[in-house]
Structure formats: structure tokens, C-alpha cells
């Protein structure tokens, strides 16, 4: 199939989109449907895989292949698919409950393995589908239907978690900034390896205003900082504030005050081999610091699927192609040979 003629419309399915009016999910859907036709990939080579939750309705609305999987297991299905069919562009759409509660284990291992899969986490800090219980990203003290006296759980920071698990591409964006989301998703699509994007997203019904400070026209420019590769960390409506390091402690400073210039500020480097700067930025506490958005980390690491293909080829070369039928029907009796006396048995290694 030709990819030249693809448009946004080609990626819209015939299903009625059933999210609540105003939900951030619509914004991610629209941006992805806009991005995919520009990637030069045939439509039949895209696959969207999800788990359970509002976000996980995604595959129904994409006119691509897709699989609505089981809760929290989308990264496992996606990893398996990418290993079996490396030519496919495999995307996971998940939420804060699906990825970080029941799917926490799959999530961290997807991050460390670096299979070439794109994982978009729609983080609204609440369980929306089940009508408003606290999630692993709900802030401490949050009153929900399951925490009437306020949550005492310490929340996960998805970006810091992904960095800690060794992800090679980590980014964060916010639902209502369509231009920034488009740029971040395009960067994720171009990355070779696991690409993780957290979308800070409003839930109109159960957590309205979850990110008001960074989405509201009046406050957003002072409450967020858009990361740009090689650029000093400047923010504010007037671009008059920045972040500098004092020892290992970040500080907000005002440009022009006490002789502070742009040269004193931290400079963003998403390509650091270690993730020290990215980790520091990911953990800046709000509202004392602005919320960083954009690409935290983008480094080139060997992709798991490529390494796996090489292993497979090597095994075929040295031992010949395997035969699954013969393996499965190979009998259930085998012999354990007694090692010669004094031989190294290997258990103490």
C-alpha cells in the first residue's frame, strides 16, 4: 500500500469515540492520527496495544491493527509482537493505573530492555474508568472515593521511574498543548528503542484541574519549563527566570538579579550517557520549581529486538534452523549424566 497519500482521516476508525466530553484522551488521539500519516509507514504496519482503563480504548479508535490486552500487560504483548515481527511500528497506550499499578513490573522491564516499542502513558492521576479512586500517581493527601481522609501513599513520578529503569528515551508533555505534544510524539516515533512519553492529562469528571497550573493561560508559562536540547533552562512568561545548580541543589533564579545571566544557568543535555541531569529535572518539586516538559533523555542504546534477531541468526548458523514440532514431540524422558568424581558441578558459581 502506498504511504504517500495517507492522511489523518485514514487513521480514524468507524467507531464512535466514547470518552467523556473534554477528556485529554481526545487530544492524544488527534495528535497521533495527525502524526502517523507523516511517518512514511504503511498503515497496515502500525499496531496499537493497550491494557485496561479509559486510555486503553485507544485501539478501537485507530484504523490500524490493534489489540485490547489484559490489565497492565500491554508492554509484554507489544514486546513479543515486536520480536516476532520487527518490521511493525508497535505502540502501547496505557494509563497511570494500567502501567504503574497492576502493570508496574512489565513497565520497568520494558524500560530496561529497550525493545523498539513506543509507550504513551496518559497520566490523569486517578482511576477514571472505575469512577474515581486514587492511583499510583495521585498526590499525597488527595481525597478520592477510596481515600476519603486523603491518600497517605507516596506517588510515583513516571518520568523518574522510567529513567531509573534505564529507559533510552523519556519525555513528558501536557494534553492541551497540541503543538508540543505533536513534537514530542514525533521524536518518540523516530527513536530506535523503547520510547516513553508521559502525557499529563486532565480528567474532567473525576480529577478536574489536575494540572491547572500548567494548563491555565494565566499561570502556565510561569509553572512549566519546556526543555530544549543545548539550551539554558529558562522559563516564565517574560522568560526572565531560570534554574541553576548550587552544588547538587537546583535553584530558581531571576535573570538580571544579583548579576545572574543566562551563562549561569543549567544547560539541557538529553544525550548525557548517564541520566543525572534528566533525573534531577524529573524530580524538581512543584510548585517551588516549574514542571519540565519535553524530552528529558534521548540516547542511542542497542535495541533489544535487533540483538534478539542477531542471536537468532547466530543460533541458526551454528545449529541449523530449529523445528518446533520436533521439540514439542521430542518425548518426555531424558538422561541426567553423573559428572565424573571431582568434576566441577557448577552450583557454587
Amino acid at each position: 500500500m502506498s504511504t504517500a497519500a495517507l492522511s489523518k482521516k485514514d487513521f480514524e476508525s468507524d467507531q464512535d469515540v466514547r470518552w467523556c466530553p473534554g477528556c485529554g484522551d481526545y487530544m492524544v488521539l488527534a495528535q497521533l492520527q495527525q502524526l502517523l500519516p507523516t511517518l512514511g509507514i504503511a498503515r497496515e504496519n502500525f499496531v496499537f496495544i493497550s491494557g485496561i482503563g479509559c486510555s486503553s480504548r485507544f485501539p478501537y479508535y485507530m484504523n490500524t491493527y490493534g489489540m485490547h490486552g489484559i490489565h497492565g500487560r500491554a508492554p509484554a504483548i507489544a514486546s513479543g509482537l515486536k520480536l516476532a515481527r520487527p518490521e511493525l511500528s508497535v505502540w502501547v497506550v496505557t494509563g497511570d493505573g494500567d502501567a504503574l499499578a497492576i502493570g508496574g513490573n512489565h513497565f520497568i522491564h520494558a524500560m530496561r530492555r529497550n525493545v523498539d516499542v513506543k509507550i504513551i502513558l496518559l497520566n490523569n492521576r486517578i482511576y477514571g474508568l472505575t469512577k474515581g479512586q486514587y492511583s499510583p500517581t495521585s498526590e499525597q493527601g488527595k481525597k478520592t472515593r477510596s481515600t476519603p481522609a486523603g491518600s497517605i501513599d507516596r506517588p510515583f513520578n513516571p518520568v523518574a521511574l522510567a529513567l531509573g529503569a534505564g529507559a533510552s528515551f523519556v519525555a513528558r508533555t501536557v494534553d492541551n498543548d497540541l503543538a508540543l505534544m505533536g513534537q514530542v510524539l514525533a521524536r518518540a516515533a523516530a527513536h530506535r528503542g523503547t520510547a516513553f512519553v508521559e502525557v499529563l492529562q486532565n480528567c474532567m469528571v473525576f480529577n478536574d484541574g489536575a494540572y491547572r497550573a500548567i494548563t491555565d493561560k494565566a499561570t502556565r508559562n510561569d509553572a512549566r519549563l519546556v526543555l530544549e536540547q543545548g539550551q539554558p533552562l529558562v522559563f516564565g512568561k517574560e522568560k526572565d527566570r531560570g534554574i541553576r545548580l548550587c552544588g547538587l541543589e537546583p535553584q530558581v533564579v531571576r535573570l538580571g538579579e544579583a548579576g545572574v545571566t543566562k551563562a549561569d544557568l543549567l544547560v539541557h543535555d538529553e544525550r548525557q550517557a548517564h541520566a543525572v541531569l534528566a533525573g534531577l529535572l524529573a524530580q524538581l518539586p512543584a510548585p517551588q520549581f516549574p514542571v519540565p516538559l519535553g524530552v528529558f533523555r534521548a540516547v542511542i542504546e542497542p535495541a533489544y529486538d535487533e540483538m534478539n534477531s542477531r542471536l537468532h541468526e547466530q543460533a541458526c548458523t551454528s545449529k541449523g534452523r530449529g523445528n518446533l514440532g520436533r521439540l514439542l514431540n521430542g518425548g518426555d524422558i531424558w538422561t541426567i549424566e553423573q559428572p565424573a568424581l571431582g568434576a566441577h558441578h557448577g552450583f557454587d558459581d
Partner: protein
Amino acid sequence: MALMINADCVNCAACEPECPNSAISAGDPVYVIDSDKCTECVGYFAESQCIDACPVECIIPNPERVETKEQLQRKFEQLLTAES
């Protein structure tokens, strides 16, 4: 002037139930505002409700339907009369 929805619309439907004139409906490719029914909420509210509700700020004045506050007020009254 009447309002319009630009191409940034993500079809989230947040605006539709907010319109006191029922001027907003799902369109192709995005939601549309019927200029003949839009009063910018003149007659009902001080602020345009759809602009407040839209999460992606894609509702803007329609440059092809320039109207004064007085004209919008008259449109509101005409719509009420037509309804009754």
C-alpha cells in the same frame, strides 16, 4: 461577531452542551458553530461558554461574521422569538 471552531479541534465535545443557543454540533472533520445561532452568549452569559469549556483553545471569533454587541443582542431576541 459569531464564533468559529478552528482546525485544532480534537472533537472532544466539551463545548457542545455548554452552548445556550444549541449552535454547536459535530461536523466533519471537526465540530462546527452555526453562525446564525451564535450570540457569543450575549443574552445569557458575560463570557462565551464554549471558549471557557474548550481545553485546546480552538474557538475564535469568526472574521466572516463581524457583529457588534447590539447586533448579537438582537440576534438573541430573534432566536427567542423564533423559539416561542
